């Protein structure tokens, strides 16, 4: 990739969020060149191809599912939720880091977020898309999904508003809408840049349409700033509310192991935990393939590592309190549920999740681990696996062994369960690498504000 657009900058000093030596134009050059001029690296084809093949698997799995019905999955009485809801909760959780970075860190004036918010928001969108697949497919007749909506109909029926599953419909669709708007509004100035820079007439037309007439006038910027702030304000409660509603899916039921009052913040922390793991898992390969270490610096990775450690501790607190509460609360069924988790048919999964989610992240206390991209990458994959196991454990183990031993049953995942799950990973990677190829993966104009020359002095302001 030794072409003309290669930007040479010095290695950023530790603790810096942007390498020295950048100028407004070199930032624009470097980020836009990924889309416009540089030769697409082999890595992109490999990753896109890999995602694409898994997507084919997903299409196959869905086709078979629609032809034969949800019976091809391992869901049997009593475990009717199985992989589908596990994957739904896992995916929707991953999206949360994107919203946290784009909305909450914006409101908190954390400028380091400017370098990672764009692809993290894209990650949110695609994760929500993957998450949405599961409840839809789990319904068995996805084409009747609109029955979930309260609309006047000749059948004279309405959704059961006391069911958190209905709240989910509203929570997730609101989340998807606001995330999409936020992401798209944030893209507009950069779409304008791409429109002006591309030499491809078709590209110019497409970017031009999407940029919606962005000309970068002072008035545009002023409206833009207001819109972003409002959208950030709207998105902030969503970081909490979506996974809170997801946790209500469990807590409102009185199934042993589900009905615990601290599930809402526990789920939100777990969501952010897995989300930041996904941010790292995406950022670390991307920045080395595209040579973006000057923009996504070690400081960013360090911060993400710290957030993972903090949320990991909240999750650890939750596991611990869950056990204490089961013992102290004195409910026999609750105690049995946790005893089964630790010693029963899912003991391997339980102890692996403890190892992945609690033991492994303790290495993040060490600066040396947080400053090593390879170790961080490994840690983030471990956490992603751990969080999936956690969702699986909560859903499957509680359903498999509830109140009445005669109705117990073990969940056995079929190959179609795995095919659908891996398929959504394919869908995610496919969409994500499409995004990397077609849109600036780092926000050009926001990174430019990180430069020292972007800071207006007090004298200059007045």
């Amino acid at each position, binding site marked *: 990739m030794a072409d003309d657009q290669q930007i040479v900058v010095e290695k950023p000093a530790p603790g810096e969020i942007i390498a020295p030596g950048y100028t407004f134009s070199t930032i624009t050059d470097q980020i836009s060149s990924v889309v416009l001029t540089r030769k697409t690296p082999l890595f992109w084809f490999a990753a896109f191809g890999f995602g694409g093949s898994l997507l084919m698997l997903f299409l196959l799995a869905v086709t078979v599912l629609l032809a034969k019905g949800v019976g091809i999955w391992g869901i049997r009485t009593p475990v009717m939720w199985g992989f589908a809801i596990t994957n739904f909760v896992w995916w929707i959780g991953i999206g949360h880091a994107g919203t946290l970075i784009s909305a909450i860190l914006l409101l908190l004036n954390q400028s380091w977020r400017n370098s990672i918010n764009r692809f993290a928001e894209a990650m949110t969108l695609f994760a929500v898309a993957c998450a949405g697949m599961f409840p839809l497919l789990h319904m068995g007749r996805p084409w009747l999904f609109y029955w979930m909506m309260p609309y006047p109909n000749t059948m004279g029926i309405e959704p059961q508003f*006391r069911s958190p599953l209905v709240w989910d419909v509203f929570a997730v669709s609101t989340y998807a809408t606001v995330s999409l708007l936020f992401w798209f509004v944030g893209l507009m100035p950069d779409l304008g840049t791409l429109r002006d820079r591309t030499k491809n007439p078709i590209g110019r037309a497409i970017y031009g349409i999407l940029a919606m007439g962005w000309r970068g006038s002072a008035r545009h910027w002023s409206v833009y700033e207001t819109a972003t702030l409002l959208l950030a304000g709207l998105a902030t409660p969503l970081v*909490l509310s979506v996974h*809170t509603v997801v946790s*209500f899916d469990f*807590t*409102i039921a*009185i199934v042993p192991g589900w*009905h*615990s*009052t*601290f*599930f*809402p*913040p526990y789920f939100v922390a777990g969501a952010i935990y897995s989300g930041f793991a996904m941010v790292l898992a995406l950022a670390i390969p991307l920045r080395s393939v595209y040579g973006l270490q000057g923009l996504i610096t070690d400081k960013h990775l360090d911060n993400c590592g710290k957030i993972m*450690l903090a949320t990991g*501790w909240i999750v650890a*607190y*939750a596991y611990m*309190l*869950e056990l204490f*509460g089961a013992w*102290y*609360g*004195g*409910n026999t069924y609750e105690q049995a549920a946790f005893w089964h988790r630790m010693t029963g048919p899912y003991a391997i999964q339980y102890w692996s999740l403890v190892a992945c989610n609690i033991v492994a992240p303790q290495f993040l*206390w060490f600066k040396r681990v947080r400053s090593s991209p390879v170790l961080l990458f490994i840690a983030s994959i471990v956490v992603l696996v751990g969080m999936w196991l956690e969702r699986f454990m909560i859903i499957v183990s509680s359903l498999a062994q509830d109140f009445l031993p005669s109705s117990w049953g073990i969940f056995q995942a079929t190959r179609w369960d795995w095919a659908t799950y891996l398929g959504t990973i394919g869908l995610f990677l496919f969409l994500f690498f499409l995004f990397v190829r077609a849109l600036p993966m780092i926000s050009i104009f926001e990174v430019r504000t990180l430069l020292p020359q972007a800071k207006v002095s*007090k004298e200059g302001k007045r």
Partner: protein
Amino acid sequence: MIAQATGFQVTDELRDTMRQWRTRFAVFGAVGVLATVAGLFLVSPNQFYRSWLWSYLFVVGLAAGSLAWLMVQYLTGGAWGVIIRRPAEAAARTLPLVLLLFIPIFIGIRNLYPWSHSDLVRADEFLRHKQPYLNVPFFTIRALIYLGGWCFLSWFFNRWSAIEDREGGQTPRRKMGALAGPGLIFFGLAVTFMATDWVLSIDPRWYSTMYGLLMIAGQALSSMAFLIAVIVFLAAHKPMVDVVTPRHLHDLGKLMFALVMLWAYFSFSQFLIIWAGNLPEEIPWYLVRLHGGWQWVGLAIVIGHFALPFALLLSRDLKRNFKLLRNIALFVLLMRVVDIYWEVAPDFLKGSFGLSWMDFTAVLGLVGIWLAYFLRQLEKRPLLPLHDPHLSEALEHGRE
């Protein structure tokens, strides 16, 4: 910069004002505590211990919550906390006094907690099950661990803060940063189990995993509201009058706003889950609190602890208005008192609403003594950390 030259020391004028307030609080506190103690001998020991317990919980929240804010600040860095660092340190230095104030609760264990009666424990399967945790020696050891741990953390951070003032340099900050993470973990666990021990075990059948978090949020909120009130008080006098600007207040106001929402989020989630579950071992806690007159207190909490401050704090102008923000902070503190009363008292007064004169004297007495001691601590050190790495950023931030 004039104030910087004087090292942000407490000026003579401010010292006089603080001493006046100190005397008032001390007199008030002494009268309150003495009256409550008189009630112990003349009226009812049970009532004395109850009033003391819930008033004590409020004071613990102010002191321990401030300690937590210090640790959050050392962990995350940033300029927002520089302005409240000294008041928070002073509040944390009151923890030894808080430890002493625990003694009446220790004496009154048998008056407060049913699990401390061996005949009751023998007769009740639930209590027998919980006995390895709920017993007097272990309860005392745990209380000493919470309070002792907080005292140690407070001593540590204040010591290194003093060294930072004297010598500057990177070392104090590094030391404090290194202990802040583990310290916060300890704080979280200590408050969680403290809530279990001191509040939940009044009704040993009930448990809610959210309750610890609710207590943490409550402490964070009351200490933040308290620190805002202190800052506004200091901002009326030299040297801080040159330092504190609406922007600083705006940041703190936003934090208070966020905590009001966080508390409401925890509180409502707990309620919704228990209400929807409607299980015999869970729902009685709310049944007691939603009948017999308590429901009006509950409604007042919904409005005063959440809806009203939420609606008011949305306003940017209000968060930048010193007096108004202080008044809201004081109101939030009042609602914290009401909330703690609503959480603790109904379990003692099974059935109907009740309020003793000792509840008033206890809370006024404890808060008065505590405030006097706090002001004593506050005047000891410069009102801003002189060598805080974020100090100039914080001062600059205020002037932008």
